[in-house]
């Protein structure tokens, strides 16, 4: 199984938020070593709990608590000049595809860390970009890490991940970039 080989997984903010919504974040911590970048940590400060009355309740996510206990590790964001360079390169190659700089910082880690890290995201645009950049195999779906979870949207599934990475790879081939 894919998750058995995993050691270090950088998780995206949407994954942290989704798992807190579903009450499954602890399960993820048991499966692998979890990392977040500073920006992702900043983004995943809270989630909204739907109380059914149209007024969602803001529930704070205590990532600092996990960090203090050493159950979650924080990676410093890469230097801004590196982010700027990567971002400009991406914009040139994929002008019709947009990801935010926070996600860019995770992709830089993937690119520079050899095979040390994997990235878990529920964002189709990020999967596509990773496929295009040639490190789609370093992405892992939440479904692959935790198995089938009720209430998990399609974008967190293995099927979606494969499709988006495939789409990115095909685009790369079509452009002759590979």
């Amino acid at each position, binding site marked *: 199984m894919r998750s058995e080989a995993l050691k270090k997984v950088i998780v995206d*903010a*949407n994954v942290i*938020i989704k798992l807190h919504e579903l009450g499954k974040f602890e399960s993820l911590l048991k499966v692998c070593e979890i990392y977040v970048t*500073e*920006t992702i*940590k*900043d*983004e*995943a*400060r*809270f*989630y*909204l709990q739907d109380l059914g009355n*149209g007024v*969602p309740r803001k529930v704070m996510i205590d990532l600092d608590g996990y960090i203090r206990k050493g159950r979650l590790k924080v990676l*410093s*964001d*890469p*230097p*801004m*000049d590196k*982010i*700027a360079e990567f*971002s*400009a390169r991406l914009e040139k190659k994929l*002008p*019709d*595809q*947009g*990801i*935010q*700089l*926070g*996600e860019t*910082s995770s992709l830089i880690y993937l690119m520079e860390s050899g095979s040390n890290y994997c990235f878990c995201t529920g*964002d*189709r*645009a*990020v*999967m*596509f970009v990773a496929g295009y950049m040639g490190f789609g195999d370093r992405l892992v779906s939440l479904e692959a890490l935790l198995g089938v979870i009720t209430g998990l949207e399609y974008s967190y599934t293995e099927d979606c991940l494969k499709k*988006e990475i495939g789409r990115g790879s095909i685009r790369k081939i079509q452009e002759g970039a590979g």
Partner: protein
Amino acid sequence: MNMDNKNDRAFDNFNLKIGEMIRKERERAGLSQKKLAELAGFKNYQTLWAIEKGRREVKLNELSRIARALGLNVSNFLKLEERTGPKFLWFSGREKDTTKLRRLENRVFQVLQNFKYLAGIAGISWFNQDFSALQRMRSSYGDENLFVTDLARKIRDEWNLGRYPARNLYDVLEARGILIFGIQDAVTNASVIDDITNALVLYKKEAPTDVIVNTAKALFRIIAGDIYDFTNRKDVEKLEKSFVAELLIPEETLRETLSREVQHYFKKELYTESLKFGVPESLFYEKIRNLKDFKHLAGGFEHAFNTVRDSNLPSAYLKSWENLKRFHLREFPLQYVKLAWWAYKEGKISKMLLAEFFWKNIAEIEYFLKEHYGDVLDF
């Protein structure tokens, strides 16, 4: 040459440039270091001071907070080029706080930038406005007033605004890619003239009829922004009024209304007719007064309006205006919201970018869009 030193220098140079950009944007927004540090959540302003001087590296999350506090997106700072903002023409100004205005300008600028980007992704080019043909018309007119009146007629015809243009105005503007902002706190109106995308910033709390008139005024400023000097109000006010009156109250429709109702002008029916045009009664009355052949009846019309003023407005009329406000006057223009949502659903932009486009957090963006734009988005 030592490679490390070379890299260090390049790095320092980058920090200097980014610090300089932050300083320029802060000054453009009229904020002190202390105020920006506070808005961006820094514990003290010395950190910001060091970042601006290039003495301390700015981190991505810090830059995100600075950008958000300035009403910009973080990617703006990475291009390391001084940005050139679009031309803002403010009118009906009630806002005295220039800092607030600058931050609002930043947000509008940013939405325009994002919109261009999103339209590029979607392959849409319909927002290209070519007013040059209309502007060329001017040279064949000796009378400016006649020119602007004809300009209004021409636009009405070309844009198929119909017999009662106020009713279609928003849809037509939307279809032509003119973004409409309905800002609640910015108690002022503006038109924004950009190379590619144009926008109207409207004060949302105004009466619907005033909003319509201000929309038409803003449209005039966009169209004639390069012809007239809008900083000199007196010169253009009369022309603006003529344009608005003709655009919203087509003479042909008005004449038809009057010839039908003229025998009963003292009746409430005339007032009801006037409501169809969706303009304030003063403008409607003035338009009648300017029609030579009806001039002699103007006193009677005035009497008719005064008689029915403050009486109950037809409920269907009010309802339609409420709907108009609900669908069109939003803080973020509907075309922008629709495009951004489409791009996210199609996997063209990430959720984090979607959130950044609305200055929201990733956790709240979907709730925000659902709550405010759920009626036009496919949730």
